[in-house]
């Protein structure tokens, strides 16, 4: 693992936390860094909703097959187990199959993955979600990567819960419900953009995110403005003005 890059990442994440930030965007940055730093091929962060169902909040890759793997874990899979037990769950060799999660293992193998890990997101005595890491190669995640993954997950939890009150269940409810609903807004906006621009969901998401970055706006706000029509969908493809980008 690149130590310097790791330090940079923690600085970047800490910088985000002091500002007024968008939770969804912050968690996307976090899963992207997981892929980069931990030598994994895909990562996703799932939070439990008020009914205890795991909902995907951020992923390094929005391809349908990967999304299905996250969705499937409401029935079975490492994230569900990590969430239920509060401990790390791994399957270093998916090709060996597995009695524990037959459907998940089959789907993950078909999607080209060889190993999977799930790290619970814990806040005191409560588990609020899990980080899911996928690798195409089989084998155990090394100890250093695991420590980093745990630290990144802790940062995600801190980012979600900006402590403002002693009644932490109230604050947590406010933050989680807001984050979960923002994600739904992003999904609606993705559908709108995918249809209008004739692109797939992944491309639609990338366009929304790039626009948010380029204009220094929160992703959930961009999603909202696309839905209300304040941002015209074709505008999403335009580079931000005033950044000195050369247009051919």
């Amino acid at each position, binding site marked *: 693992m690149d130590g310097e890059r790791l330090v940079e990442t923690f600085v970047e994440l800490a910088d985000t936390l002091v500002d007024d930030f968008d939770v969804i965007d912050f968690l996307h940055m976090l899963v992207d860094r997981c892929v980069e730093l931990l030598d994994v091929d895909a990562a996703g962060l799932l939070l439990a909703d008020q009914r205890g169902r795991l909902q995907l909040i951020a992923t390094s890759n929005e391809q349908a097959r990967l999304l299905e793997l996250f969705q499937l874990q409401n029935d079975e899979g490492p994230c569900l187990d990590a969430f239920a037990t509060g401990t790390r769950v791994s399957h270093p060799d998916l090709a060996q199959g597995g009695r524990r999660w037959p459907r998940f293992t089959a789907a993950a193998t078909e999607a080209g993955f060889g190993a999977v890990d799930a790290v619970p997101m814990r806040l005191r005595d409560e588990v609020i979600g899990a980080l899911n890491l996928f690798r195409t190669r089989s084998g155990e995640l090394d100890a250093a990567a695991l420590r980093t993954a745990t630290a990144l997950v802790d940062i995600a939890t801190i980012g979600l819960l900006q402590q403002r009150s002693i009644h932490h269940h109230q604050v947590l409810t406010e933050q989680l419900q807001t984050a979960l*609903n923002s994600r*739904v807004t992003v999904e609606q906006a993705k*559908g709108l953009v995918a249809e209008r621009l004739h692109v797939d969901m992944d491309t639609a998401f990338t366009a929304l995110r790039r626009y948010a970055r380029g204009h220094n706006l929160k992703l959930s706000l961009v999603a*909202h403005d696309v839905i209300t029509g304040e941002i015209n969908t074709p505008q999403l493809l335009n580079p931000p003005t005033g950044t000195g980008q050369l247009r051919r």
Partner: protein
Amino acid sequence: MARYTTGRLVQVGRWIAEKAAELDVPVSAATLCRAAVARLGVSGAVLTVDTSGWPEVGCATDVLGERLVELQVTVGEGPAVDIWRGGGPALIDDLDAPSSQARWPLFAPLAVEAGAAALFALPLCVGAIRVGVLSLYRLDAGHLDAATLTDSLAFAELALRLLLDEQANLNATGGDADDLPLHNPQVHQATGMVAAQLGLGMADAFAHLRARAFAEQVPLSGLAADVVARRRRFDRDGGRP
């Protein structure tokens, strides 16, 4: 986070049905608010709905509930107004506390003057679809304990379902608590696609999608998957490709 099981949701649904039976009226948003007051130890409940772009009283258990909404509309700020603008739940233990007064300098003192001390506003929404707000209030300051907060969220989910069913012209009473797969991202992606295909807002697109699934007797998740995979389009003159 406060979290409830499907069993708890069914229990809360039963309380609402019991309240309706006791009053000899059909289950409605009004009976839901009455049941919430009876079960959650709050002094009142008010459900606001959106018809004009501003929160409007759908039903309130007493005049203070109506007053709290009226005040927010008058001064243009408050928990329900924040939710209308995209905010999340606002759980305010003490409206008289400096943090509450700083957050809503106009609304908070007026709410206290009107007699409210604690206010818990829960959004009823599906992404950008803002259906309403369920506000619970008390005459004494204090937080909601974890069990009460959990039940409050269950009341809010049932209120959301009730209002969504009205929007889609579906009468889902007695329906399975899981017949509305709001945790499935494809349902929301499909809503966005249908909104673009039919030139509708998200709320109407979602209602349209649900009504179509109901009419065709197919699960909403399946229809949504077909829309996302572009096996199915909605056109202004019909639904079949």
